[in-house]
């Protein structure tokens, strides 16, 4: 995505052009269980960390031998490797991600974005602490890039949890340091990423936590931070049809009622939530 972005919402939202655009895959990499697509999107604007795009393959989408995909799917922008480009981290979990993971360099896709409100980088003097699980590490990569670029010298390694070694290869996406935990102990800490988080917070509670991952992990992080009065921003997931506030389908319950995750999120403050266990989020 290119350079002259208009941002709103305290700099947490880069506006998207209103039409979906035909973008082109320029590189496809495999990181263990994940696929990284590098996409040329010359008309796009650089996303803020935590923002996402709605993606659909240009061919064989809206039908198929099975039933779906029909609607586009939401993916966090994982990195801006160069102006007019974006990277996405994908895991094949269903028909849409399966189709997108098949794309090769040269293939076209439809892209709408960047969308949503990203992370608030104002940490009020607290040290940023990144905690991610599974494919949820995607927005943490661009966040870490940005924090590193803005000169956060004491940037702690991102804490990343994975199921097993093939998934843990995703950690390579984070270029400025990561500590890994795996459920099966095959790589790094044997256990949950929240255990690493507890360790870090025990060491120094003056942190601003940024988290993204499966609902159960996010909920554990939220509860942990609430207990310790540590501010936390959570990038949530929910089923989305449109990504720009049109369908009211992506709501999650907050203390002040349902909010549309696509326009009022996907990053929410831990304080807004009773729970991060979103019904139907699927992972």
């Amino acid at each position, binding site marked *: 995505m290119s350079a002259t972005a208009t941002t*709103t919402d305290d700099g947490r939202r880069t506006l998207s052009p209103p039409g979906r655009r035909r973008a082109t895959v320029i590189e496809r990499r495999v990181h263990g269980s994940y696929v990284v697509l590098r996409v040329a999107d010359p008309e796009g604007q650089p996303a803020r960390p935590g923002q996402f795009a709605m993606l659909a393959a240009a061919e064989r989408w809206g039908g198929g031998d099975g039933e779906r995909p029909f609607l586009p799917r939401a993916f966090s922008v994982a990195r801006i490797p160069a102006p007019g480009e974006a990277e996405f981290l994908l895991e094949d979990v269903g028909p849409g991600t399966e189709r997108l993971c098949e794309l090769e360099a040269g293939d076209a896709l439809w892209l709408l974005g960047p969308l949503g409100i990203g992370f608030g980088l104002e940490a009020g003097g607290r040290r940023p602490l990144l905690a991610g699980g599974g494919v949820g590490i995607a927005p943490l990569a661009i966040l870490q890039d940005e924090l590193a670029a803005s000169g956060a010298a004491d940037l702690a390694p991102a804490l990343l949890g994975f199921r097993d070694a093939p998934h843990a290869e995703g950690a390579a996406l984070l270029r400025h340091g990561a500590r890994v935990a795996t459920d099966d102990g095959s790589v790094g800490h044997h256990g949950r990423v929240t255990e690493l988080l507890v360790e870090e917070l025990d060491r120094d509670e003056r942190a601003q936590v940024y988290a993204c991952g499966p609902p159960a992990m996010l909920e554990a992080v939220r509860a942990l931070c609430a207990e310790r009065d540590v501010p936390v921003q959570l990038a949530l997931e929910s*089923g989305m049809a449109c990504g720009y506030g049109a369908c009211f389908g992506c709501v999650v319950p907050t203390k002040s009622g349902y909010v549309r995750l696509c326009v009022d999120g996907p990053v929410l403050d831990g304080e807004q939530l009773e729970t991060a266990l979103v019904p139907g989020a699927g992972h």
Partner: protein
Amino acid sequence: MPAIGTGAGIDATPSLPTTFCGIELAHPIVNGSGTFDAIAARRAFGDALVEQFPFSAFVSKTVTVAPREGNPPPRLWELPGGLINSIGLPNKGLDGYLTHDLPELARLPVPLIVNVMGFTREEVARLVDAFAEREEVSALELNVSCPNVETGLIMGADPGETAKLVERVRPLTAKPIIVKLTPNATDPGAVAEAAEAAGADALSLINTIRGMALDPRTREPWLGAGTGGVSGATVRAIALAQVQEVARRVSLPLVAMGGVQRGRDADDLLRAGATLVAVGTESFRDPLAGRRVAAELAELRREGSNPGADAPAST
């Protein structure tokens, strides 16, 4: 076969001037109520949305008297070529709409149609009354797909109930009143005739068709509300039949919708007797779908009745 939505030729606003209930529109493509939130879209897209506004008139999401939270999630289930939704009509309520939404929607570059729904006739009357004199509002659409809390029956499924409702609200405003029919009715044509006789100015159809899906894991209903409404390509043939039937039985202008993805689909509905065509679910796939459909329609009109790309070659 041409790919859907190549986005070609949608830079200029398509010009297919259309008059609907005395309202002059740039082209016949509007949105389906509840499938486009111009205020949220402006947050996402900024002023560019206004500059390239996809519809020739904007139909706002259903407004009820009291604010509504809507249904518990999950609210969406994807189908082959479609969607089941159980959104549950979340809205800020009449007062919230008047205070927060109306001023913003009034600034859109196109006429505004307000869609309202009440759980009793008196509620509908109150809603119509509230917009009766508002200059910002070009027309009112009555969503009659909800159960009357007194009778338990869907108002819009019954010709008698629909007639009583239209008769009740007709005197309240000089603005065009559009009655949005439900497809979940034995005889939508009879309801249409009743609405016409009672003084409606136009009809719109189809609303979503009741449907459901099970969670592939738990094998329980997926949607938080149990069932929902089906929309998208998968209802297109059903919509077309209902539009044709209603067009035969009334002489009112129709706003037709249901599965429109391309200019060709819009053209089908216009040929079946509609005056306007609304795009709903397809906007979820592309926010500028309305504009593209209008452009494709203009292109079809330019080609005249040439077979075009859809018709197969002969041997």
